[in-house]
């Protein structure tokens, strides 16, 4: 009942908001007692906005990102993504939603090691059932400057190159929202700067909503808005 009321009150607001998190709490069972990782987090993200969530390691950034992207379910509260309450979807429905709307970039790249660079980029397109996946994949790999490395396996690429492949993979479906979890965490300063540059260039080009989780202040500053996370709570 309470939820319904909340729905009515905020309906107009929700319409403008692309992502809205309401009172997110995440608890996990550790042995016999439960541990609170996130506590009562509410936030709104507008369409086309870029948001950075910064905090020290262990503050709950990845957990929050997982909840916002529908990879995980909150213990309390809810996430409304593009007018859909994620709590009402099951795992496969959320997967479908991700396939259509969401791109990911990770700290450790998360490329499939037995696929070539091109195949890795083609993967989301194939999942999406798109035609001529190789054409679009090549287009993006050209944009990230790896047109010469199409047939290389992740092992044959440097860290920065792997992250470029990951960025190409993230943008290839033209996602409406992109989640990045410490995209520069595994890279040296110079490479990190290049990657950040590339990321925002493509973000602008495709008008993607960007949610960036990082402890890198450089990356944080590039975003329009920055939120601080400390011990699972937002601080201003």
């Amino acid at each position, binding site marked *: 009942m309470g939820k319904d009321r909340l729905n009515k009150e905020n309906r107009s607001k929700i319409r403008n908001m692309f992502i809205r998190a309401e009172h997110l709490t995440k608890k996990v069972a550790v042995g016999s007692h439960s541990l609170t990782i996130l506590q009562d987090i509410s936030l709104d993200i507008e369409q086309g906005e870029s948001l950075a969530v910064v905090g020290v390691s262990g503050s709950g950034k*990845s957990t929050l990102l997982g909840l916002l992207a529908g*990879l*995980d379910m909150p213990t309390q509260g809810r996430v409304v993504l593009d007018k859909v309450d994620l709590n009402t979807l099951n*795992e496969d429905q959320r*997967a479908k939603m991700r396939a259509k709307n969401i791109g990911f970039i990770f700290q450790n790249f998360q490329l499939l*090691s037995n*696929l070539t660079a091109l195949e890795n980029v083609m993967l989301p397109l194939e999942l999406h059932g798109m035609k001529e996946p*190789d054409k679009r994949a090549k287009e993006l790999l050209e944009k990230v400057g790896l047109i010469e490395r199409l047939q290389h396996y992740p092992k044959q690429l440097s860290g920065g190159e792997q992250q470029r492949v990951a960025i190409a993979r993230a943008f290839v479906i033209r996602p409406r929202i992109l989640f990045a979890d410490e995209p520069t965490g595994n890279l040296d300063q110079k490479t990190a700067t290049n990657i950040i540059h590339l990321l925002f260039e493509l973000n602008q080009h495709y008008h993607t909503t960007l949610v960036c989780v990082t402890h890198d202040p450089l990356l944080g500053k590039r975003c329009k808005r920055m939120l601080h996370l400390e011990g699972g709570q937002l601080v201003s």
Partner: protein
Amino acid sequence: MKYSLNPSWKFLVRNWKSGELQLIAFAIFIAVVCITSMVFLTESIQAGLEDTSGSLLGSDWVITSPKPIEEEIVKKTHHLGLKTTTTVNFLTMLTRKTTDGSFSRHVSKTALKRAMPKYDEELVLAEVQAVGKNYPLRGQLRTAVQLFAKDEIASSIPEKGTVWLEARLFPILGLEIGDEVIIGSAFFKVDRVLTNAPDRTLEGINMAPRVLINEGDLGATKILQPGSRVTYKLLIAGQDENLKQFKNWVTPKLTPTETLIDSRQSRPVLNIALQRTNRYLGLIFLVNVSLSGVAIAMVARRFSLKQFDSVAILRCFGASGWWILKRYLSNLLLLSLIVGALGISVGLSIYNALKSLFLNEMLFELPGLAITIPVIIGLCTVFVLLFGFALPPLLSLQKISPLRVLRKDLDPPNLSNRLVFLFAILAVTFLIMFQTRDVELTGILVLLTLGISSVGLWVIYGLLQWVSRVGQFLIPLQNLGGIRRRGRENALQILAFSLVLTFIGALFLVRTDLLRTWKDQIPFQAPNYFVVNIPPTLLASFKAFLQEGSINSVHLDPVMMGRLVSVNQEPVKMQIDLSNEKQRVFTRLLNLTWSQKLQSDNRVVEGQWFSESDNGKGVISVERGFADRLNIKLGDKLDFQISEKRITAVVTSIRTVEWDSFQPNFYVIFPPKTLENLSRTYITSFYLPPEKINFIKKIVQNFPMVSVIDTQMIVNQLKSFFDTISDLVQYLWGFTLMVSFILLFAAIISTLDERREEAILLRILGAGQRQLLWILLSEFVLLGLLAGTIGGISANGILYWLSQTVFDLPYRINYEVLLLMPVIGMVLVGFGGWAGTRSVFLTPPYRAFR
């Protein structure tokens, strides 16, 4: 273009590179090769065995009659789709045509008038068999082109105008290939030496040597006159159901002079052997399927573990659980179909190779339809292995949370595999049922395996905990902690090792025991000649003559002809159902004997064998079948008419007799002295090596009144039967070893990743290569020791149980296996583990990290 490939093909090609799929494919391939070639072999040996038991008749069933078989009966067999052929058998005098051709017909007629068996330089009583074109329906007709030349299977019957003669006729008649002999009024060219013809039985009247002619020549011999003693036979072979149907139809139609004989009923020894073989093969089959199944499950588990990260990424990018499952499913299906088809064809070629190499004589060409059975079982094997063993570990992939991309420690919730497990058991059960067609055996085997695995896992797990705790004080091994740490993996690993060692041990034991028992059943130098009608006056000189021919320690039994007159004062004619052939036999003359000692192949099952004090008394020992058929009990009074005398005797014991022991055997035995003054002859049997066949001629020349019966052919048939079984058992044993090694390998690599990580860490922390190898080796040796101990004990346990319930053989604990298995385990697992994981330590830690 590359990307126009079908997605599942692409996926397969990508996964193939990861290695585990290669292993699964290899395991399925080997299992299918083993199982199809085995089923090919067993199906064909089965055909061979049925043929062998039929080969003593030349068919499954025979109808014998003194008149030609009714047309109506022959028509019915065709109607039921049974195969038939006819033969005509008669005794006649056989003689050689001299070079001038002067030996004429009327001489042989005079000889016929004498109408008694007699061996002569030029005149011999022989059993002529005129055969039709399909002869024989079962068993083999074998001939040689020269005396003592190697024989081979005859592809046809004798051509018109030619004759095939048994070897012993050649010296007696002074014949060579190409000479001519006279049968009745016709001349025949001697074409081949007949070395093996079916439808010979000990109990029959096959005293005379066999002569084979074409049925088309029958008329020319002019022997088929009214009143001549001729036996017409209709040989019948076909499917069991059709035979049964035919039997029901024909039995009421047969006249008292016609008899229907069933080959299987007349050969109990072969039946038992057939059943044992079948059960043994069933055991091997189960062992092979479950060993490869466990191997595949282990590899598939590793494969699925390796897929966790990729699947998490796929899910993160929006793949549904079903999409992922579908990918892997179609992947595995595609793979198994390719590999299965390959395995089946390789299995077929192995079968063909083995058949032409070794088992040619006993293996029979599978008829068109039968060839589908191994193929079907091969395909079933693929699916059983795939869905029962390879799939369950992969099912957990659809449960993987996409969150794993953020948190490495998120393993899928442990899937409740009970249903899948149940399915695997059902599938394996079905396979064994299909192959052995033996419900009892299947039940026992499946329950046994289940029991062993579950109890085994439980015991091993406890044992491991105990060993690692106690062991720390006993042996200073640093890695014992490792054993406990990997408790679950190690318990599974040891179970796999133990399973291998148990099955190897058990099969080894069954194999040796089974073969030994079989060997005991067929004496290698079984008597191949019987000599009957030895008069008492010549007893001493006959013995001396045999000794001269270096045939020693022969035993001569007295034989008297007598008729059973009454049982407990009731005349025997009234008790016997005259329409029953089996009972009617006993109204004929019986062979009686006396003996002080119980013959070695006889066993008293009721009452007591004679003591010295019984000598001269009216007591007898009767054979069990005889007693059963005439309903004779211990203590019954039997009256015999022997020559002029009437003798009354009380039954004091009932015996069983090995009719296939090739010793003279008797339904009724008296103690010594009771029959002493009655007229009698003597009978004996002995083994004569084939090359000494001339000695028979000498016997016949020196003792013209005795008759020699040749049983070599029957002995040969039995021998080749047992030889083939033991050969086959050896090959199947080899297959099982191969499957065992696959499982061993699968088990070893199942913990390879954990070991690799641990080793790399230890190397970074400064452990030397030697130190690491030592840790690794000692851990594997310890695992091998445990598995070997368990294997040795459970192999003995299994065998004890099997010997009691399935094989009906005596068994005592085999200490060699008990002691050797731990050693074998240590060596095998130690070496295998070392060889399998060695590479981990040879790569520098830096490269290993990439």
